[in-house]
């Protein structure tokens, strides 16, 4: 797969690739209950390929357990892939080797748990600056604390003296202080309330404009993902089922799961884009231990056909920069089933 998610209209000198995931697989072996039992494993991430260029944001959405956080851990090098390759940085170092070199940083979901309660803010931020002289370290820590909109006196406070939003700003300061090529934002705004979310997202966008850092933004919240991402990947059961430019998320979604996800997004007012019918999926995702033989979404798909249950679809490029893993791409849209002759009606 060779998608680089740069719009075709981009200028000739494209930013360098800072994340290159090729067919990454991560299985977690399960403990056997008896010696005769075959070895089984959880297929957390099952053949994901993505690329990301400097200064851009890749959004990853999906429901709980779809493997998006595992993908995040592969990208940060905190886990090594069972097979496939994860390369980060301008010179394509394997993520596991780059881990801890300051190439990749991360901001986690719960800021209270991401800061050591016994370390002052300065100490936490300075942790990302190993092997830097004291004077320069102090200067860069001050800069980072200022860059995330905190006053210098926060440096000598402890995490429990800070609000959730302030804590998350400190985490962001720690992530940017070492000037990484790539920052993983793993549900980074999910634990904050709506107005704080907006503030933090604005902050992240501003920092990206200033520093050119690439983001991988993992969330179950489609709206937040779409707001900050240049390109969005939808994951289902360890695989990317659709990857589209952010603009396509308002009307051009092709995979029925992505459509269902988009249709259930809560809206305050009808924004006049399209009349949206909620596509409610029935049942739970199948077990990641024994994924279905055909399309992994088939058991829950509103427009499933026999063919889908037998043959697993490949991820193919529908239009430039827009990939989908479906035998009937585009047959389910936000306004219902597009082609009435296509078979099973949608469950709406």
């Amino acid at each position, binding site marked *: 797969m060779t998608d680089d998610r740069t719009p075709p209209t981009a200028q000739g000198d494209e930013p360098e690739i800072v994340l290159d995931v090729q067919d990454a697989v991560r299985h977690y072996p399960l403990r056997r209950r008896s010696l005769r039992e075959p070895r089984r494993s959880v297929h957390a991430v099952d053949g994901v390929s993505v690329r990301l260029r400097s200064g851009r944001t890749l959004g990853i959405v999906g429901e709980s357990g779809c493997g998006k956080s595992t993908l995040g851990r592969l990208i940060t090098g905190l886990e090594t892939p069972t097979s496939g390759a994860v390369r980060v940085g301008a010179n394509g170092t394997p993520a596991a080797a780059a881990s801890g070199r300051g190439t990749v940083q991360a901001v986690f979901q719960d800021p209270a748990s991401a800061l050591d309660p016994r*370390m002052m803010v300065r100490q936490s931020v300075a942790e990302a600056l*190993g092997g830097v002289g004291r004077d320069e370290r102090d200067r860069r820590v001050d800069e980072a604390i200022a860059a995330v909109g905190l006053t210098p006196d926060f440096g000598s406070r402890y995490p429990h003296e800070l609000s959730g939003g302030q804590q998350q700003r400190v985490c962001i300061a720690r992530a940017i202080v070492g000037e990484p090529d790539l920052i993983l934002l793993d549900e980074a705004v999910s634990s904050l309330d709506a107005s704080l979310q907006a503030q933090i997202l604005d902050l992240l966008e501003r920092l990206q404009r200033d520093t050119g850092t690439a983001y991988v933004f993992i969330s179950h919240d489609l709206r937040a993902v779409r707001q900050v991402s240049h390109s969005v990947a939808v994951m289902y059961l360890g695989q990317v089922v659709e990857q589209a430019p952010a603009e396509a998320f308002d009307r051009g979604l092709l995979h029925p799961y992505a459509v269902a996800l988009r249709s259930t997004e809560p809206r305050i007012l009808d924004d006049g884009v399209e009349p949206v019918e909620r596509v409610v999926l029935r049942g739970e995702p199948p077990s990641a231990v024994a994924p279905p033989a055909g399309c992994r979404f088939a058991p829950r798909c509103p427009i499933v056909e026999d063919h889908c249950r037998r043959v697993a679809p490949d991820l193919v490029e529908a239009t430039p920069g827009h990939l989908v893993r479906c035998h009937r791409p585009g047959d389910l849209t936000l306004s219902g089933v597009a082609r009435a002759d296509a078979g099973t009606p949608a469950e709406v």
Partner: protein
Amino acid sequence: MSTIAERRPPSRGVRLPRRWPVRGVVANIALSLILLYVVLAVLGPYITPFAPNQVGAGPNLSPPSSDHWFGTDALGRDQLSRVITAVRPALLAALYAVTFALAIGTVIGIAAGFLGGLWDGALSRVVDLLFAIPEYLLAILVIAVMGSGLVNASLAIGIVCIPRFARIARGSTLSIMERSFIDAARLCGRGRLWIMRRHILPNIASPLVIMTAINLSTAEAAYAALSFLGFGVRPPAADYGSMISASQQYLLTDPWVVAFPAIAFVVLVLAFNLIGDVMRDRLDPRSRTSAGA
């Protein structure tokens, strides 16, 4: 949140010390008692009315009197002087034993919890093995190998106490490992030793301190028991266990020879025990007992 840190008002430049973890009437009494014992241990040789090992300082087995407040023992040694002198080995034994167990147990526990996998398996099995051997049997076994005396007896008790510290250190480490600041430190390029020392150790200190307080009384009682069996400081030096054991035949005729060292010893263990209870209540309010603040 697993810390016992209280919410404080935002500090203005100066960081206030953490609140003293032992408060309340019971805690104050216990602390005063321990302070008294510490003073006696330090000043012992200078304040005893007689030399503790001086045979015939008074008549044999004389009851408490103005000359000999605690009476004399079967060899006419002054009991008050001996009770005061015995404070030092008693405190030192508890201190040595718990310090040793704390140091070794914490290292084992953090290593097992942090490194996981085979390390955890191996270290945890060793700890389980130590736990499985009856405590006094293990202590006497250690003494049989190393010989008796204050330091050896303390080490023996320390070895017996290691599993408790190791288990609590391992469990606390595992719960800290769940927090994402450990992953953040890894991404910042911090090595295992840094993470264990700078992140894990400070965050598991509270339960370890409490475990230390609780174990002081256990170690104290264990040392007295070993001393009673003759594994403590060498006679004729004064030691609660050996004093009780040497005088037990006079229990019915001249009870004070047993009573005074026993009382001194029991009060010391009780004081340690109360401190341990108060600190445990501070950590875990659910198991609150009457010893609360």
